[in-house]
């Protein structure tokens, strides 16, 4: 649509509408004019401006015509005109301004808004805004002459009232926008008049009169309704910023004009004029700072980032423009700025870093002072305020460090600052140590070995710290960032010294100081640090500490952490396994949860000195220190490798600890260290540094009383490494065995766990290829397609052989003898050689087995059980070397027999397992002994006990006799199978077990007995089929051929009795 460009044509076009409007001021006419106006080109409209405005203003002027619809239409038309044109005459501006204000205000009070519809209000406000924008530069400033003060004042208060009280957000925003225009702080995209400094000064003087009103009302808006929406708040902040920035501008106040006395001719109006004298400035600044404080506290943690962004702009603007006049507020403003340095919204951060770059150069003093006072109040704030507030305060704290940048080290040189800051951190980071579970949780040895399998994927559960003063994880991460920033910019020597001092000073601070140190070192290495763009001196990048400095600091921290007093903390109620008395309960045997001893039980001596609190605290301290070692490793990277000499041992020591938390922390720490030092896995870490570890282990084994943990370290090492460790480990094993020999009574339990770990490792490293398995050959006979003829032929042949018919077969056997003896000779020849070259793992195993023989008769059940396990592993490892195995079996037989026949049920069961393993490896060797020395006693005791248990009540299952029965029955079956016992023995076993098939026996005994029969049936299915059927035959059998006589079994046709069910089960 082309617009009318010629002013004359336009005039002709518009004239009828204008005339009509003057005559008949109706909504329709105004709208017609409005429509027509849109077809006029801007330039023409400018020429016709006065003409067009006249009818519109006329409508506004005539009071009786003031109908809302009409006024609104007029206001819209006016806005259109004003947006398109400029106002060149002061009269027009002045008149329109007052007319619009009049329309807005209530008839009785020019400072109060009239009760109009929202649409009308917003139309009028839009019109007013357009007017202020349309005013020419030379006339607009007339508006701010002292003479205009009353009118302007009314307008300002009207707009403030609208902005504050109005319900509609649009109206509020529009009113505030008008105010922005009035204070020359408009942020819209249109062109604005740029005032000269004189003009700005006069505007400032005028607005000074309204500053109290504006500042107060606007801060009410800002701090008022939280739900008013961010747009209004943002506008309000802009108004506040604009008005304060205008009135309190340093540039104006420094020039003499600011406090010119008003000329006399103003009369009473002169009293309204404010002289911006220094006293006035000071008192105003004081009042403003109160308001500012409110505003900042309300907005800096505001949910909407635009508000926070606006706050940054405000702080920035005021710091640039009014840092002199608003000296009192500088701290507040900086705080706001600094708080936003760590804002989560990147735009805010960006703007903030931009502004702090420009402004804060000179403010190091103020910043450090602020920092000091904040550090002072931090603990109080952390105790009292809510999480969000805490988070903000800490962000401010962090912001100071970031803004200060390298100046941090200067600030920290002041002892007062350092003291405050460190104390604040100490108090804030206080841990909550009341959780009882920490002490209770026990790690089971398996977790350790499980982890060795899949090192890469294994991520130990990282325990969460609980703090006294906060719960939010974000707060903790900010705190940690603070520590890192400190380390990044600060002097690492000074900080390390100071915090180590705190660490030593008191138990109360120890954990916190360690936490701070850990993160500080990481920060000093530049780890997990956002690049320091925000700092004052952004020229310096990278951490202040050199790698050398870092190393020195790390060494001193590490020495402190791993010193005996700080490392060997009591974490369990009991001292060691060895001190435990031999309780006859399974609870301890299964190594399950250990309860804190109740008052009824006699408390162990350590409990009197250390409460649960202390234990918890110790545990946490260890965890933190372990994390610390990981941090040091991360900070130093590969340079940490030489430090492994002293640090790896302590970490492994803790990895062998029973307390779950410590154990896990140590494992985590190990992972971190191995990663940081460039090892691909824990295994590599340990293998590469096994010499360091073994040195310490070997030395500490000689002073076991001071270093009781040495065997544990070996255990952890064994669990995590492979056979390449063996050559090195050999002499340490000698040391272990020697140490064990020297202290059988004292620490046998501890050593047993080492031996167990050792044998387990050996069994893993040198798996035995089992070629001989006991029952497999026999079980093959149970073929499905049973061939009667072949069976009889085989039977015939066997029978002939047994009667000596086929003697000639022996000749062929004789022929085979010479080569066999040749083989023996060959063996003899290489025999001595073989002896000297026995692989070292077998030598070790032999030695361990030797110790086991001694320890098997130890009075402590716990120990005996462990030793039996070790022995079983020894047997397994030796099982391929009969030359070594048989003497060993012979030596341990007497003690093992004792275990089998006269020991606690638990031990009996384990002993059975050992015997089975032995039987598998050298069944022939043992068969006679077992059948002669063990079986008779076992079977007789079973037979003797059978009637007792059959009659016993439910309490019987808690007796020792029952447990013994159960253990024997559970072990007997597999033993028979493995040892390949002779028929007589099997019969004896069968005889003894049969009573237990009765359904009157306790259920578990029946089950165990069934397992015995199942094993027996595997050994010799026919015999036991027959035996069972002789006693009880569930079905009749018809012969496959009529020539054969029918089968007569004595068990046939018997009535159902107590044995029936189990017999059926066996025969299935």
């Amino acid at each position: 649509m082309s617009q009318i460009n010629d002013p004359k044509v336009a005039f002709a076009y518009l004239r009828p509408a204008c005339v009509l409007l003057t005559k008949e001021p109706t909504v329709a006419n105004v709208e017609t004019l409005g429509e027509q106006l849109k077809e006029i080109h801007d330039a023409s409209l400018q020429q016709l401006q006065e003409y067009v405005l006249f009818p519109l203003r006329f409508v506004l002027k005539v009071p009786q015509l003031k109908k809302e619809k009409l006024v609104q239409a007029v206001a819209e038309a006016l806005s259109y005109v004003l947006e398109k044109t400029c106002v060149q005459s002061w009269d027009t501006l002045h008149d329109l301004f007052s007319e619009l204000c009049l329309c807005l205000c209530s008839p009785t009070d020019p400072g109060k808004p009239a009760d109009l519809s929202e649409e009308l209000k917003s139309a009028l406000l839009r019109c007013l805004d357009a007017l202020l924008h349309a005013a020419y530069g030379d006339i607009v400033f007339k508006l701010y002459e002292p003479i205009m003060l009353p009118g302007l004042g009314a307008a300002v208060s009207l707009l403030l009232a609208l902005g504050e009280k109005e319900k509609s957000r649009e109206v509020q925003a529009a009113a505030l926008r008008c105010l922005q225009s009035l204070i020359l702080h408009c942020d819209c995209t249109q062109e604005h008049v740029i005032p000269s400094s004189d003009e700005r000064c006069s505007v400032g003087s005028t607005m000074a009169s309204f500053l109290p009103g504006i500042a107060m009302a606007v801060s009410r808006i800002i701090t008022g309704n939280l739900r008013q929406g961010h747009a209004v708040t943002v506008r309000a902040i802009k108004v506040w910023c604009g008005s304060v920035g205008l009135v309190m501008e340093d540039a104006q106040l420094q020039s003499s004009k600011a406090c010119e006395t008003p000329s006399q001719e103003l009369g009473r109006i002169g009293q309204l004029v404010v002289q911006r004298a220094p006293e006035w400035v000071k008192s105003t600044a004081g009042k403003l700072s109160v308001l500012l404080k409110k505003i900042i506290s309300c907005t800096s943690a505001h949910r909407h980032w635009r508000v926070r962004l606006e706050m940054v702009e405000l702080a920035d603007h005021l710091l640039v423009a009014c840092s002199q006049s608003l000296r009192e507020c500088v701290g507040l403003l900086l705080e706001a700025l600094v708080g936003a340095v760590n804002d989560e919204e990147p735009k805010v951060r960006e703007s903030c870093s931009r502004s702090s770059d420009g402004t804060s150069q000179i403010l190091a003093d103020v910043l450090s002072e602020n920092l000091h006072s904040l550090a002072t109040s931090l603990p109080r704030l952390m105790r009292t305020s809510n999480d969000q507030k805490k988070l903000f305060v800490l962000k401010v704290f962090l912001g100071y460090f970031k803004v200060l940048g390298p100046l941090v080290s200067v600030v920290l040189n002041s002892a007062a600052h350092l003291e405050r800051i460190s104390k604040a951190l100490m108090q804030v980071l206080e841990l909550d140590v009341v959780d009882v579970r920490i002490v209770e949780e026990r790690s089971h040895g398996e977790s350790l070995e499980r982890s060795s399998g899949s090192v890469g994927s294994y991520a130990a559960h990282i325990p969460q710290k609980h703090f006294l003063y906060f719960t939010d994880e974000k707060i903790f991460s900010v705190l940690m960032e603070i520590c890192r920033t400190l380390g990044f910019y600060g002097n690492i020597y000074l900080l390390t010294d100071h915090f180590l001092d705190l660490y030593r000073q008191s138990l109360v601070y120890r954990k916190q100081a360690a936490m701070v140190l850990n993160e500080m070192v990481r920060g000093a290495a530049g780890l997990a640090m956002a690049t320091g763009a925000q700092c004052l001196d952004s020229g310096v990048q990278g951490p202040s500490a050199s790698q050398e400095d870092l190393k020195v600091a790390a060494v001193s921290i590490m020495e402190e952490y791993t010193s005996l007093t700080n490392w060997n903390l009591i974490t369990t109620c009991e001292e060691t396994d060895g001190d435990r008395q031999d309780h006859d309960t399974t609870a301890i045997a299964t190594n399950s949860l250990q309860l804190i001893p109740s008052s009824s039980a006699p408390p162990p001596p350590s409990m009197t000195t250390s409460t649960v609190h202390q234990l918890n605290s110790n545990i946490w301290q260890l965890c933190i220190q372990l994390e610390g070692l990981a941090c040091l490793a991360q900070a130093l990277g590969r340079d940490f490798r030489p430090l492994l000499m002293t640090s790896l041992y302590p970490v492994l020591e803790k990895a062998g600890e029973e307390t779950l938390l410590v154990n896990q922390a140590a494992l985590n720490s190990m992972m971190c260290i191995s990663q940081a030092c460039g090892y691909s896995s824990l295994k590599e870490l340990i293998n590469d540094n096994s010499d360091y570890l073994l040195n310490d282990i070997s030395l500490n084994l000689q002073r076991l009383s001071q270093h009781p943990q040495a065997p544990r370290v070996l255990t952890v090492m064994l669990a995590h490494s492979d056979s390449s460790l063996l050559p090195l480990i050999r002499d340490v094993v000698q040391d272990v065995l020697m140490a064990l020999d020297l202290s059988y009574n004292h620490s046998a339990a501890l050593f047993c766990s080492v031996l167990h770990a050792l044998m387990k490792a050996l069994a893993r490293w040198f798996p035995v290829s089992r070629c001989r398995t006991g029952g497999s050959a026999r079980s093959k006979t149970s073929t499905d397609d049973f061939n009667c003829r072949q069976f009889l032929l085989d039977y015939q042949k066997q029978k002939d052989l047994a009667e000596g018919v086929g003697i000639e077969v022996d000749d062929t056997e004789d022929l085979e003898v010479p080569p066999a003896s040749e083989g023996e000779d060959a063996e003899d020849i290489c025999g001595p050689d073989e002896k000297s070259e026995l692989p070292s793992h077998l030598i070790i195993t032999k030695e361990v087995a030797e110790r086991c023989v001694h320890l098997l008769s130890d009075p402590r059940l716990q120990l005996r059980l462990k030793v039996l396990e070790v022995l079983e592993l020894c047997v397994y490892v030796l099982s391929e070397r009969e030359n070594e195995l048989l003497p060993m079996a012979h030596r341990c037989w007497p003690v093992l027999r004792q275990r089998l026949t006269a020991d606690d049920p638990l031990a009996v069961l384990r002993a059975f397992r050992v015997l089975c393993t032995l039987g598998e490896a050298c069944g022939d060797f043992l068969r006679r002994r077992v059948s002669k020395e063990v079986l008779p006693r076992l079977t007789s005791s079973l037979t003797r006990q059978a009637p007792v248990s059959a009659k016993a009540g439910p309490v019987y299952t808690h007796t020792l006799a029952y447990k013994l029965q159960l253990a024997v029955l559970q072990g007997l079956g597999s033993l028979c199978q493995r040892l390949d016992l002779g028929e007589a023995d099997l019969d004896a076993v069968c005889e003894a077990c049969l009573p237990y098939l009765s359904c009157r026996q306790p259920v578990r005994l029946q089950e165990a007995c069934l397992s015995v029969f199942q094993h027996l049936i595997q050994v010799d299915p026919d015999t036991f089929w027959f035996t069972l059927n002789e006693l009880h035959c569930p079905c009749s059998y018809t012969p496959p051929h009529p020539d054969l006589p029918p089968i007569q079994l004595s068990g046939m046709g018997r009535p159902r009795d107590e044995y029936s069910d189990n017999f059926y089960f066996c025969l299935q």
Partner: protein
Amino acid sequence: MSLPAPHPIYTLRGAGGALNTLHFRCHGEDPHLLFSGSGKGSIHIWNLNSRRAEKVVEAHSGSSVTWVSTLQSTDTLISQGRDMQVCLWDLNEGRSELLESVWTGSVGFCQCSLLETSPTNYLLAFAAQQTEEIKIIELPSKNPVCTLTPKAKVGMVMCIKLWKTNSGLGPLLLAGYEDGSLLLWDVTQRAKLSQVRAHPEPVMCLTFDPRRLRGISGSSEKKLSSWTLDSQNNIQLQDDVTLVNPGVSQLCIREDGRILASAGWDDRVRIFSWKTLRPLAVLQYHTDMVLSVAFSDHQDPRQRLLAAGSKDQRISLWSIYNDGAGKG
């Protein structure tokens, strides 16, 4: 006053054989090193900072290495093996190249003795092919200087020590023989200066303190015998020290002349005051005969370590009596 028994500060393991000889080199900027010669023929060069073998030189084709030393001036290592060779090795810039080798012809266990006469020249004394014969040659030119053979029958050469006097006389040589005799030789005159029967058993080791003109020798019996040289260069027997268990493999005096260490066949290292020969400490760690002891030549007296090498294939490092002037 009895302090708790000290413990080694570190043990070096992995030598794979009995440790016949040890030698420190701790001067200069380089990482401080300890050389060890093993019964399996390998020379381990241990870095004392990382406490690991930096390099292993397979020196004498599997024959036992009986003695190692280094030259002050250059990065040269000298080793003697039971393959009757003395070898010079260049260790510059991480190399280990064979420079020279000298055939000794001795089948005994006598360790060589080295005397640096100037930065480029040095004398090497070694037991030669004849059992009683000692040869001295100049290196690196390999010119024979002299051959010393005692007239009396004293048996095989067991140990020798070459040193230079302050009195302007040429280098002197102390030698211990199989029958327990000690002989003092003047190398330039090729003449025996003095002879004394110090032990009833073979002299296993001797060491000499040129500043005090005082020496001590050990044997396979329970006694250490100390002696001095008077102004006429006569060996004068002095006090005996009686040990608990017989047999000493090596004796070593610390550079500051305060303490003496003995490597005992009873698995122990014993420390004596060198002035009074009072026993000061028994260092117990090894599980087999201690074959060698050595003191470090570190510039800082506080960091002077004692190393002991044993038949149990470990080297133990000790930090003893080196916390300043108060003790020793």
